[in-house]
């Protein structure tokens, strides 16, 4: 696995899309810092962008990378290594380069502004943690989609729809439910529904950790009560971990049975 990881990482750090992705965050963070040198405010602005953008890039890049690597996978399958090692190595190599792009693109421009000694470091780490977690989850979903859909157009279509579903449609349905059942006590339903959407989980953890729940009125108070405690944070992180673990295990299972 480690060897496949190494060469996948070598390949992807030189990939032009990855360079573009890193440059985009480098420029965006630098531009935000020029507008306002307040590091905490910049980190919060970045969280609003990363919560939508990292799942989109994760899922599209994952699908694109898998489809572009089908011959390479066949080449690796002819080597004396297990399917598990090949897929684990390729996936982790890709996830590491996506995460590296984010950490470098967002973190590097903040260093001259003294982020390492600033109290805003905690805020930045939360934003980076969420961006990296969302990249990992959505690139895992991308591998699942691409392994399942042989037709590339269909695969890209499912990927875009999945992102649209989690980023927009899910919230629309969610709000509609809240509106329809507004006369009933639906706090538990709300909390349950949030768990099924990693983007919502990331948003809420960021909002709560950055003490912005007061902006969300009564809902914010409910969320603060449940998730705001350290126990709540552990629950959110555990659910996010399940969002990583389950697709990863599904990929391994599919890799074991699939014809290439």
């Amino acid at each position, binding site marked *: 696995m480690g060897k496949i990881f190494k*060469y996948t990482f070598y390949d992807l750090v030189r990939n032009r899309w990855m360079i573009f992705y890193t440059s985009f965050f480098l420029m965006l963070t630098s531009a935000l810092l020029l507008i306002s040198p307040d590091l905490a405010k910049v980190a919060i602005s970045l969280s609003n962008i990363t919560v939508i953008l990292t799942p989109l890039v994760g899922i599209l890049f994952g699908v694109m990378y898998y489809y572009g690597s089908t011959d390479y996978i066949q080449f690796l399958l002819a080597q*004396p290594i297990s399917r598990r090692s090949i897929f684990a190595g390729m996936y982790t190599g890709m996830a590491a380069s996506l995460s590296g792009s984010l950490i470098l693109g967002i973190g590097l421009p903040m260093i001259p502004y003294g982020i390492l000694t600033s109290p805003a470091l905690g805020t930045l780490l939360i934003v980076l943690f969420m961006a990296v977690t969302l990249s990992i989850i959505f690139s895992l979903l991308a591998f699942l989609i691409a392994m399942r859909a042989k037709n590339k157009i269909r695969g890209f279509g499912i990927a875009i729809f999945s992102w649209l579903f989690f980023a927009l449609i899910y919230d629309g349905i969610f709000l509609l439910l809240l509106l329809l059942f507004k006369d009933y006590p639906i706090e538990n339903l709300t909390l349950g529904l949030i768990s099924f959407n990693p983007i919502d989980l990331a948003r809420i953890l960021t909002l709560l950790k950055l003490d912005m729940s007061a902006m969300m009125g009564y809902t914010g108070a409910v969320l603060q009560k449940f998730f705001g405690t350290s126990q709540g944070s552990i629950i959110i992180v555990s659910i996010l971990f399940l969002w990583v673990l389950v697709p990863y295990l599904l990929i391994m299972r599919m890799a074991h049975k699939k014809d290439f």
Partner: protein
Amino acid sequence: MIQVQQLCKSYRTNDVLSNLDIAFQHEGITAILGPNGSGKTTLLKCMLGMVLPDSGDIRINGSSILHKYNYRDQVCHVPQTPHFPENLTGHELIQMVRDLRSGVTRENDLIQLFNLKHELDKKMSRLSGGNLQKLNLLLGLLYDCPLIILDEPSTGLDPLSLQNLKAWLLQERDHGKLILFTTHIMSFVEDIADHIIFLLDGTIYFNGQLQELLRHEQEEKLERAIANILKPAL
């Protein structure tokens, strides 16, 4: 050395291999021929563990290879369409194969054979189709394996490289290797194959020496003999 026993593989409703039984007992060069979709590549992929058969078994030196991977240390494979990671160089790919396998490599001989010395520092995205195929051959033939499997190895090669490839394969055969390959270039088969297996609709239509096939079809050239077989089939 290799025994394919009652091998069946279908993709949805399409039966690609139907109860295929073949034994490759000795060294030599065997061409696996057949029209498009006859199951040639699927058979080779089953031997390499890329495609999992619905039923049946493949045994190499007496042991089943299904769901195993260690046996591939003894198998060299040259795939059909080489698309390597586009930002890696030839040197890095050679190093990767060296990291994944053990044994003595023959890279210097192969670099010289295919005249690749000046191409190995280039990224894959900058290599021409022919040079990519030469690198594909170099990586596939890098180790000294008793079994060599090649899928359309002559695609995109210039005449000199093709001649060198033939000479290399004949030399390997003389060293006691078993070589299996598929191709649609009949002159390539006539030049190097000792044995021919002709697949038609997932079953064996012919299994024997080249001369036997020519006699059977009453033709002097393999291309015409194959065309004779395919005419009624199509």
